[in-house]
């Protein structure tokens, strides 16, 4: 990773104890185009954070930057209280074991069946008997609302919605504390999307799961998000619960949450 050390502003904005993910002063640019400019963000333990922003404002870039997939030019990221750059190999491994990611396109391994896909993290990180892994894989399948016989199918044989669910099942394979969801309900029918929302809300309640969700689905934002962050002007432009968003006077936020489409749904 190419990270330029920034000037240490020691504990000026030290993350509070219940902050599971702290992003400080992160800048990312591609070539000469700056996408994120000294962005700060805190995600609290156990909350469902919805992330919105216009297309191309860098929502996915921020998520990928937190995950270490996109190099950033400056800034620090603390996950589970560990600085990602300063973490040792074993710390990094235990961090990676405790987060799950649902990619926008699913990113299931195409040469493995769904069940094998879910078992990949288990196989790599744990020493479980094949029987228990099998049971857990089908358990996760049912948890995300897939029928058991979907487990033996290959990703290319699944519909778009099923890929999303299977991918969520893989993200949940190791019972993570923090899951990143990149547009989980896009491409799902309204009933499926609602079920997906309920599922995420349930998991968050049952397991104390922290959810970082990039989404454009106003229904998801209304029904399950504890807080909503708006990405704009290369920063987190606004963050807060839905009620605050509804009374925000920023033109973009206003048209997003109180525009024609948004009002029609009420």
């Amino acid at each position, binding site marked *: 990773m190419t990270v330029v050390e920034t000037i240490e502003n020691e504990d000026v904005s030290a993350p509070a*104890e219940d902050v*599971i993910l702290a992003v400080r002063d992160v800048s990312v640019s591609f070539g000469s185009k700056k996408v994120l400019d000294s962005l700060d963000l805190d995600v609290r*333990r156990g909350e469902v954070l919805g992330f919105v922003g216009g297309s191309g404002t860098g929502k996915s870039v921020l998520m990928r930057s937190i995950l270490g997939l996109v190099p950033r030019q400056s800034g620090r990221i603390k996950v*589970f*209280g*560990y600085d990602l750059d300063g973490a040792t190999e074993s*710390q990094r491994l*235990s*961090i990676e*074991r*405790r987060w799950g990611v649902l990619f926008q396109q699913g990113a299931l*391994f*195409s*040469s493995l069946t769904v069940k094998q896909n879910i078992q990949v993290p288990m196989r790599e990180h*744990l*020493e*479980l*008997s*094949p*029987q*228990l892994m*099998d*049971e*857990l894989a*089908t*358990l*996760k399948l*049912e*948890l995300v609302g897939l029928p*058991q016989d979907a487990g033996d199918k*290959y*990703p*290319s*044989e699944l519909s778009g919605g099923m890929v999303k669910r299977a991918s969520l099942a893989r993200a*949940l394979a*190791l*019972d993570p*504390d923090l899951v990143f969801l990149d547009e989980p309900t896009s491409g799902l029918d309204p009933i499926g999307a609602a079920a997906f929302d309920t599922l995420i809300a*349930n998991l968050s*309640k*049952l*397991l104390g799961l922290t959810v970082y969700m990039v989404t454009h689905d106003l229904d998801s934002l209304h029904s399950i998000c504890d807080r909503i962050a708006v990405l704009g002007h290369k920063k987190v432009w606004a963050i807060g619960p839905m009620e605050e968003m509804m009374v925000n006077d920023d033109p973009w936020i206003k048209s997003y949450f109180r525009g024609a489409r948004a009002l029609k749904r009420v």
Partner: protein
Amino acid sequence: MAFLETNAPPEFWVRDDAGNHQVLCLKGDWTISTLAAAEKLVNDIKVDLHRLTCIDTSGIGEIDTSGAWLVHRVRGTLEFKGRRVELTGLTDVRKALFCQIETHHPPRYKPEKHPFSIVGFLEETGKQVINVGKDAFAMLHILGSLGVVLTTVLLQPKRLRGIAVAVQFDKTCIGAVPIVALMSFLIGAIISQQGGFYLKQFGADLYVVDLAGILVLREIGVILTAIMVAGRSGSAFTAELGAMRMQEEVDALHVIGLSVTEVLVLPRILALMIALPVLTFIADMSALVGAGLTTWVYLDIPPLAFLNQLQAAITPQTLWVGLVKAPFMAMIIGLIACVEGLKVGGSAESLGRHTTMSVVKAIFLVIVVDGAFAMFFAAVNI
């Protein structure tokens, strides 16, 4: 720090209560990170089935779905033996978690088997035979549609995608010149060195020129170039078309109303059919240069003598016999590459398999075609 705390190992003990009851008490963390230990532990649980009434979970520190499943499985196994077992000490959240888990009934676990049997072997053989038939059919299909497209293009030359052909020609021919020239140069040098080594013993050094000239022009030049092109461009065609299939680009062409053969297959095969003769000619010349240099250095035959002998040994016909095979080989390579590319399914593994198959089949068929030409030329005394 607070979040990455170490887990307490899972434990259990059996408590004897008043009234001849037994309680299975669970302790420690039952989470995914302690699951391996927990799994071993539950196999050791031994209780008196007639006295056990409940499993006390109040001692459990942390629990997640995986741990909850294991606890549920312990309970389930005991209940299967005919004893009602209650879970006690659950908080409301955990009750909800167990409610979710309880609805799950995994199918009976069947370990994967990989039996080797004569039936399996025969089945595999049969499948292969059918696949060979299907392949031949697919190739005929593409060849047929290629014929149709070629006729349309001949009748309406505007429909030929000139730029696409040029781009493919650049990739398959211009890019391949250095490696083909180098390889042929070395082969020419090696043939004349090896030939010279033996012919020198009879004092027949000069016939190395005949040997190298005829061998290179008639056979080696074209066949080595074809093999190189099959590996270099054939695999690229398969991978390109395969990736396009995986991304539904081929389907997009269909629905826009474009013919896949016209847009993707024809430019590639046409470019390859022009490229391979050109490359073969370059390979021939470069091999002769290699042979000439070796005979000069190794056998002391000066270039002028080499050229004189070469002129006596070969005729333009020798060169043409080699070159005329090139377009046919190019067509075989291109056809196989495109057929395999269009057969790619949804997975990355399938892309790899078909790319391998494309190269293997193309090289094999190139040699078969060469053999057929050898028989043909022998029959017509060329």
